[in-house]
């Protein structure tokens, strides 16, 4: 109970930067305030987490549209929450630096993000602290690399059955 109070206070003390692009509300909490922000949003009525993904801004670092005070980093964790009662969506964009790609897991707040966070780890190499099953989900467990990162090229990895084309 006391944890919730602290979280709400932290949210109120340092207002989270926000924008509205195309009529969609976007919040930009920093990594420290991420969990507290999501928790207070959940208590406000955002009852379900629709989506969680990552964007790698390696080759597009100077993106416009970020509100003042938000320091752009290489990775951005993007979380979509939905308040069914008020029919409002909110999107959170959390800046995650390349040298420490770690954010806390939302599993305790929204268990439905479990697979999405595994996918984000698998494809982008962003880790989620406190995730109950921090493993790859789409790629084989012994896979090396995170293919949706911008520095992973297309066709750089030899594929199985490639010898088939020799006989054509």
């Amino acid at each position, binding site marked *: 109970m006391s944890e919730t109070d602290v979280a709400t206070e932290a949210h109120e003390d340092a207002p989270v930067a926000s924008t509205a692009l195309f009529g969609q509300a976007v919040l930009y909490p920093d990594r420290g305030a991420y969990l507290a922000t999501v928790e207070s949003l959940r208590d406000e009525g955002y009852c379900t*987490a629709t989506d969680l993904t990552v964007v790698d801004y390696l080759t597009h670092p100077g993106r416009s549209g970020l509100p003042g005070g938000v320091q752009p980093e290489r990775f951005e964790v993007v979380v979509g929450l939905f308040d069914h009662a008020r029919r409002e*969506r909110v999107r959170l964009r959390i800046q995650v630096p390349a040298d420490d790609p770690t954010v806390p897991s939302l599993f305790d707040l929204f268990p*439905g*993000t479990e697979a999405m966070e595994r996918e984000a780890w698998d494809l982008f190499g962003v880790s989620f602290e406190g995730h109950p099953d921090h493993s790859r989900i789409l*790629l084989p467990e012994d896979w090396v690399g995170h293919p*949706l990162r911008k520095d992973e090229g297309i066709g750089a990895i030899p594929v199985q059955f490639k010898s088939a084309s020799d006989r054509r």
Partner: protein
Amino acid sequence: MAAVRLDLGDDERVRRRDGSAVLRMTEVEAADLVLDPSDPVTGERADERMILNMGPAHPSTHGVLRLLLEMEGETVLRSKPIIGYLHTGMEKTGENLTFLQGPTNVTRMDYASPLFSELVFALATEQLLGIEVPERATWIRMLMCELNRVASHLLFQATNGMDLGAVSMMIYGWREREEVLRFFEKVTGLRMNHNYIRPGGVAADLSDGWQDDVRHLLDIIPPRLDEYEVLLNDQPIFRARLQGVGVLAPAEALALSATGPILRATGYDWDLRRDEPYLAYDRVDFDVVVGTCGDAFDRFAVRLEEIRQSLHIVEQILDLLPDGDYRTQDKKVTPPPRARIDESMEALIHHFKIFTEGFHVPEGEVYAAVESPRGELGCYLVSDGGPKPYRMHIRGPSFANLQTLPHLMHGRLVADAVAVISSVDPIMGEVDR
């Protein structure tokens, strides 16, 4: 999260281990778990406890879904869906195709309802571009999507029947679906993977005499749905296989991010078509179908009734579909007409530029969502101002819905697992992307 409801009562099996429904370990760890004689839990009844692998090529796993089931005798304790067998990196591919080529990629995700993936990609792109789509294009999109929902749910009826032993149902379901696909082929040129809905409108106008084709569908499908009801609803064995199996509460469904018929079957009244209207859904009349107890039978019944509601929408579209253009005349995204190319050098260059370089989309990021037959299908697009998406993410409803599987199967017999997988109706192309 709310505790998983089990009807095993205070059976000691429920209290075993951490009581969780999800098996969170790798294949190797799972094997060691059972073989370890020093394990205090497996030690006493190790002969009854095992890890059973199901799939990925099991006939009832709808493609290549694989499950690790922790069993005690015939009871499923914990389980873990293992996915990725169909992963082809479509989100990465999407970053290397222009916005015009994008629909050819996303349409291959959910192959049972390809038009919805195209639609959500087109809606997101149009929002970034800030273009308006002509009325007629909007209504054509609605018509095609609702027919696609019918086809997709008919496919579910077919496979669900087959999984439960009503093999004749498989033939009937595919038969009716084929009638719808025949109409799609006439309009789009292909039965599946249409690449029909594109940013700016649709690829072509409806075919001549489309009203007759649609009326034909409206004539033949409803009586056959009545036949399904006789065949399935009135069949005690079919009901016994589904009723009370795989029960989910609304709070659990929301917590697990489940959407679509799975969420509605729990009695939770939620449909993006009504609650966050896109296209022109606020101008047609339809009911949101909800279940009562969230079991596999409700999920079956919700989908069956949704076919009728979709046909009801299609019937209204027949009267309401306006005349006009089927794609925007914004020169930025639409190539010049064929006749102009013969007489104008500029038109030829314009055409060439759109199909080679592609049109540039203003910088920004946007999330669009539609109600696909499986739930909320979302598209998160980031553009850096170039002709290709900087990031294209699809929020697949089946991907999120699959997380309910361990909770639905927990404490049930392994024979029910087949009914449960079938009732979740995952399309693996969209799960793995």
